[in-house]
């Protein structure tokens, strides 16, 4: 019983001391959805309501009246956050309509990405990644969220394998019978030709 008491006592200071356990997960100042908590309390009074993602996120700043000088970019992948709230001058994203340049003060947009090269311009340095596909959200407050499934820096691409893959998928397209096979082969061709032009262009 004493052990339980000591564990309970230890838990409170532990949680307080670890109020910022991970830098990626700061609890935001705003509370969770009030209507949800009230509705929960009415139906299930004995249990605490579950938390919602809003309580785990930093709130975004509101739209400023004048155009800010820098664009804040979040570039996330399933396996890592490549760029987290990094201030840059410009990013060029491979949207489905072509390469789209994003500057601070860009109009709010939702765009889907196609396989292509993403370049981040910060002062004089340019970092290029090849992204497979994803989405980009540009918010009115000069925040850009780029969510991609896969992204590799260009120097990690092997030109020979790209050529081989392109040849493979072209042959699969011609030999494919069902619509599904043909669609998969077409996707492969699209990605590999984009890879090719990324390496050469």
């Amino acid at each position, binding site marked *: 019983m004493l052990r339980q008491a000591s564990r309970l006592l230890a838990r409170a200071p532990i949680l307080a001391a670890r109020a910022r356990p991970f830098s990626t997960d700061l609890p935001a100042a705003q509370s969770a959805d009030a209507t949800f908590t009230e509705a929960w309390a009415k139906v299930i009074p004995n249990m605490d309501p579950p938390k919602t*993602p809003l309580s785990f996120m930093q709130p975004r700043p509101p739209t400023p009246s004048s155009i800010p000088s820098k664009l804040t970019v979040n570039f996330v992948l399933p396996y890592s956050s490549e760029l987290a709230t990094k201030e840059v001058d410009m990013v060029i994203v491979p949207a489905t309509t072509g390469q789209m340049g994003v500057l601070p003060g860009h109009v709010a947009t939702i*765009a889907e990405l196609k396989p292509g090269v993403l370049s981040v311009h910060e002062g004089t340095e340019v970092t290029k990644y090849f992204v497979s596909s994803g989405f980009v959200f540009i918010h009115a407050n000069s925040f850009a969220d780029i*969510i991609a499934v896969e992204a590799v820096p260009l120097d990690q691409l092997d030109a020979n394998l790209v050529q081989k893959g392109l040849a493979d998928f072209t042959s699969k397209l011609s030999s494919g019978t069902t619509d599904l096979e043909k669609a998969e082969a077409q996707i492969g061709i699209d990605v590999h030709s984009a890879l090719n032009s990324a390496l050469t262009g």
Partner: protein
Amino acid sequence: MAMAALRREGRRFAPLISPRPITAVRSSPIAPSHEDEGPIGVRYISTQVVRNRMKSVKNIQKITKAMKMVAASKLRAVQTKAENSRGLWQPFTALLGDLPSVDVKKSVVVTISSDKGLCGGINSTSVKISKGIHKLNSGPEKETKYVILGEKAKAQLIRDSKKDIELIITELQKNPLNYTQVSVLADEILKNVEFDALRIVFNKFHSVVSFVPTVSTVLSPEIVEREAESGGKLGDLDNYEVEGGETKGEILQNLAEFQFSCVMFNAVLENACSEQGARMSAMDSSSRNAGDMLDRLTLTYNRTRQASITTELIEIISGASALEG
């Protein structure tokens, strides 16, 4: 000394008490029999019984300590992945907001749980929250269905909500978790289940001792349009231009599917972390309990052993003194 006095008393009543206990003790001084009788009906537990119990408790302690080590190493592996995936769902919540109290006709609760047990109370918590959400969203013309990931939630929910279960998926962690696997899973769910809102229930990992039950809501594109038109939290969505030749509806469809797979990936990783953390603390308290039990049994064993030695000595001495005088 008190025992010696008792012994003398016993000897006076010797004709009444059967001589069996004395001869039994004399004939087997080294290995006491199962049921030892001391002076006038005081019974001791045999040391053999206590020794067996001590051996099994010690083995249990070793096993639980090993399980704790294994859980700790697995936790380290999954924790980095989970932390890295935390950035994945934040852009979606920033764009589309979070509307857990949205009023929809068809909601689907995706409950994420573990396949293996001995992990504390996290699976029961997830199931309780899922049932709570089911109750919250019940009403006329509203229905809530379950999609279950993991054996433990399946066992609990199949008992009373069997007709509401749409899909059951188990053996998620046979191979290390990766995005491809989760996106295939998300695809299956999206193909087979009709929904207006998907509510994903999982345990978010805060630290090794703290797991917070969380519910993430993913809305279908039609509901997103409806909420955007009616204003409120999603009212700003109309301000966003949509690039590309596709219509807004198609983009929202792709967006909803992508959001679901991203949120699922993060949820599955967080739940895996919580499972290992809960198992660590469960096994830790279990080995500590086993240690306590072992201490108590050791005391009992020593008491029993000393008592039987004392009994023998008294026997011998009183026998010797009876012979002398």
